[in-house]
């Protein structure tokens, strides 16, 4: 690419992507995307994790997840 865009490295935020195939299933983590805003993150999540017929998909900023403990701390 010829343009010097800095958005990806500079302002990028990681978003976790959650989805489920049926109403009875719980939402589960299917992956993550990196984007500078929620609009772009939604577009990226839909494009990247479109291989299944999800009935629901949601994204959340990874930084907004409040962790009680992490691997190795329990």
């Amino acid at each position: 690419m010829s343009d010097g865009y800095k958005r990806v490295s500079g302002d990028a935020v990681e978003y976790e992507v959650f989805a489920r195939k049926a109403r009875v299933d719980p939402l589960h983590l299917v992956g993550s995307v990196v984007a500078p805003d929620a609009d772009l993150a939604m577009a990226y999540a839909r494009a990247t994790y479109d291989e299944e017929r999800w009935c629901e998909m949601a994204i959340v900023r990874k930084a907004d997840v409040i962790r009680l403990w992490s691997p190795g701390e329990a």
Partner: protein
Amino acid sequence: MSLSDLVLSLADNKQMLGLRYAEWATRAPSLEADIAAAAMGLDDLGHSRVLYGCLEPLGHDPRGAERESDAKSLRNLAYFDEPWTEWSQFVAANAILDTAFTAMIEACVGGSVEVLQHRLRKMLMEERYHFLHGRSWLRSGIDSGPRDRAWREAVEWFGPPDGDVAMLHREGRLSMGPQDLLARIEGRLETKAPHVAVDWKTWDPARRRVRPGAIDAHTFGMLRGLEEKKYAPPAAAKHTAA
């Protein structure tokens, strides 16, 4: 121009938009943007297939034999004539032209023609993500050249204030006329279009553009399947020729 002519123009433009998106599937600024380019390309190529499929039920298919040999017979905007060399061109097409096509699809879905009401509705769901992608990148700032050109070609594509789209609106077959369509994309993008003065006397009503020209020979060859034949083994090529 009839509603079929308008739908064919929409189909040809969606096809070219899809192809140009796909060309950026390994050149966008990030892996996510690569994947989005590929996914949006597939969406728009699929939309073009659905739109071509509406021509026969509409009662008039304007496609003639010249489409096999003359690139100028395709009804795409000049913006798609050549592959894009800059990301700004991608973003301007994604934000402005793709949204213009979506606004026209909304006008078809909201109009009185049943086949369009039913078959085009699903496209609007997929286009929501094209719009989010385009608007976000547009807000990050792009070169004014591609942006202004995209606005100009959107205005040209909607047609003159008293032209065919205005007439189809008056008849109820479209739910919006040219001014409503422009206002719709301005509202969506939360920005005003630059002042565009179109010399409608030089406007081609079939191709909905002012600028002469046609898509590049490579893309036209590929669309016609010629590129595929070029890479076929000699025996297969001979068989095809026979």
